[in-house]
């Protein structure tokens, strides 16, 4: 799979170990995750019906997934009726080829891109480049990452691992290679850096004939696509070019227009901790005289149907990519996004990547161990994905093998053997349990997920945990008991 795996990436424990010893990275991450975490809690507390919204979001997505074939066909019909063209791609290579052909048909050799996890997942930029097509990332953080010849380390703030001095240096050194150079005497104040990016990118927006985007949601009933963003680079890419190509995973469907009322309340608050993100764009096919007059939607599978085939793991497809789970994860906070070796870092990455890609590689086999099972990720998730449950399930899969689906075919996986998996599991487990506080963070949920806490670690970890006590999880934490016995309203499902 092109671009999906970070080539040469060490498995999680090694990569995490390296990241943990990088002081700057840790300080940046800690600052960032704690800041967003605190703000998010406040933004969520404003909504007295948060539990109901969360449950509705979960139900909408589950319903969609259980009728996904029907909704995909309906979406295709409504997008086509609105003037768009729908393409289907079974894997990354096919998706990339479709986009390459579409760009070629326009006669252009450059495209502007709005940040999209799906296109990162399939390695679209690299595939375009190999065909002589320049793909410009236009999100400020993505620009920093692209100019720095780097990888994103967070879903929402991809350049979170870079500080302002580093960004100034990257801009000064690299901008002239790609277009308008950085202004003389650029300082490291965020306002000046943002201004440099504005000027550099505006030149590209104004001349761009082709835009490439992802989408946060697609509405089956109406054929509407939705992009949620802050900077306006999304609006630029969606509005100014003549041709728009949107590359979207098949799980991003919601059935009806009304469903968006749920997610446009839960997504911004979970994500950037804002009541609403600065810009949301919705479009339905093409509109005469306003925006691109040619619209292509590329629907990608790339492991999603295999994920759907897993009864426990399919809930990962509910994910709306808010990144809240990253910001509360004690493992992510210390290890950083790069350690996960995929475009999906943090707790969601730990369950999504091994399902999308299978657990054949060492990094994918180690990902289900990249967690302390503290449950904090489940607690914040706006669509209530039980990440700890899926993690335990995937650990079993890695250790014991068993039935799975790969590229639509039922297969029986062999237990991961050899030292690699064992070492991965051992080191990850020791590391997570060895960090005091890691388990405490989500203790409330920890006891809810108690049945997933092994007395001893499964498989390769057993020998190790056999001689050590894993921290015990109380049957009912104090706060739960207090709420239960003092009439506190329990809002957690």
């Amino acid at each position, binding site marked *: 799979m092109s671009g999906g795996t970070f080539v040469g990436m060490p498995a999680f424990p090694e990569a995490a170990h390296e990241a943990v010893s990088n002081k700057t990275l840790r300080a940046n991450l800690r600052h960032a995750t704690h800041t967003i975490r605190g703000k998010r809690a406040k933004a969520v507390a404003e909504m007295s*019906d948060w539990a*109901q*919204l969360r*449950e*509705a979001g979960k*139900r909408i997505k589950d*319903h969609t997934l*259980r009728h*996904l074939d029907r909704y*995909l*066909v309906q979406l295709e019909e409504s997008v086509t009726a*609105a003037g768009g063209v729908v393409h289907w791609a*079974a894997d990354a290579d096919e998706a990339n080829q479709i986009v390459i052909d579409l760009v070629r048909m326009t006669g252009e050799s450059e495209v502007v891109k709005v940040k999209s996890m799906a296109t990162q997942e399939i390695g679209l930029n690299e595939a375009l480049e190999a065909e002589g097509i320049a793909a410009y990332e236009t*999100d*400020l*953080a993505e620009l920093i990452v692209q100019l720095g010849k780097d990888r994103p380390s967070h879903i929402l*703030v991809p*350049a979170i691992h870079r500080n*302002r001095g580093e960004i100034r240096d990257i801009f000064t050194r690299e901008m002239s290679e790609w277009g308008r150079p950085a202004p003389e005497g650029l300082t490291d104040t965020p*306002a000046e*850096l*943002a201004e440099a990016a*504005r000027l550099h990118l*505006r030149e590209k*927006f*104004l001349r761009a004939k082709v835009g490439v985007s992802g989408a946060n949601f697609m509405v089956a009933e*109406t054929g*509407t696509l939705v992009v949620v963003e*802050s*900077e*306006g*680079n999304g*609006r*630029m890419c969606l*509005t*100014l070019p003549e041709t728009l190509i949107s590359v979207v995973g*098949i799980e991003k469907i919601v059935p009806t227009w009304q469903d968006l*009322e749920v997610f446009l309340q839960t997504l911004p608050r979970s994500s*950037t901790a*804002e*009541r*609403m*993100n*600065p*810009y949301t*764009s919705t*479009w*339905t096919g093409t*509109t005469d*005289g*306003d*925006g691109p007059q040619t619209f292509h939607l590329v629907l990608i*599978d790339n492991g999603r*149907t295999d994920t*759907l*085939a897993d*009864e426990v793991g*399919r809930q990962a497809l509910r994910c709306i990519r808010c990144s809240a789970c990253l910001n509360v994860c004690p493992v992510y906070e210390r290890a950083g996004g790069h350690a996960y070796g995929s475009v999906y870092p943090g707790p969601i990455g730990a369950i999504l990547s091994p399902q999308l890609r299978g657990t054949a590689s060492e990094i994918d086999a180690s990902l289900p161990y990249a967690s302390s099972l503290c449950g904090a990720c489940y607690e914040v998730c706006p669509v209530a994905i039980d990440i700890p449950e899926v993690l335990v399930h995937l650990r079993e899969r890695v250790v014991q093998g068993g039935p799975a*689906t790969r590229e*639509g075919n039922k297969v029986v996986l062999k237990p991961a053997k050899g030292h690699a998996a064992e070492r991965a599991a051992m080191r990850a487990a020791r590391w997570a349990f060895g960090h005091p506080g890691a388990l405490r963070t989500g203790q409330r949920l920890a006891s809810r997920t108690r049945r997933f806490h092994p007395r001893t670690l499964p498989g390769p970890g057993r020998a190790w945990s056999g001689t050590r006590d894993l921290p015990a999880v109380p049957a009912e934490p104090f706060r739960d008991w207090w709420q239960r016995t003092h009439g506190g309203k329990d809002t957690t499902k």
Partner: protein
Amino acid sequence: MNSRDLILGRVRRALADVPRDDTPYDQAVDRDYLREHGNLGVEETVELLAENLADYRAIVHRCTDAELPAQLAGMLAAHGSTSVVVPPGLPPAWLSAADITRVEDRAESTVYDLDEVDSVVTACALAIAETGTIVLDGGPDQGRRRITLVPDHHICVVRVPDQVVSSVPQAFELLDPARVLTWISGPSATSDIELDRVEGVHGPRTLEVVLVSGDGRA
């Protein structure tokens, strides 16, 4: 087999374990969340809109219908603007007091033309109080999406209380998905550099919202 059939076939096989469920969709999901938060009166809702707009760093002004032309003229002058984009259906009276070059957004005008313009004045489809959001739907008094994107200064006029709803669910009831919609909550912003908020990377760096109330003469 083409990829469409391949993917749909995989989906169906993947769901083989799922029991058939023909519950109509409107019964499949409980919508017991709130249609609005709190029980605000009309004036309080407008007040909340103003507060939330300001909280996300839009500059908020209030005036009456009769005062609007002078208000807009004053704002454009204060911003130092010498030119303004005008959507085709903007009420002519709104800019009647402004001594400024008017640029109409024509089909043939290019984005480079737009890039030269200082400001844009539009109406809106509606505004959402709880989130401090204005929504544009491309109506004649709002124009194409690009005119509120390329110029660096956007002035948006909201009729209060007629165009104000409380909440996101109420907004979805009124908006038409067939139109292109732009939801705007404050000016363009980024927190990509060490989480420091900076206004304006690509969209307008200054968003001014005028809440206009009828003065009985309009």
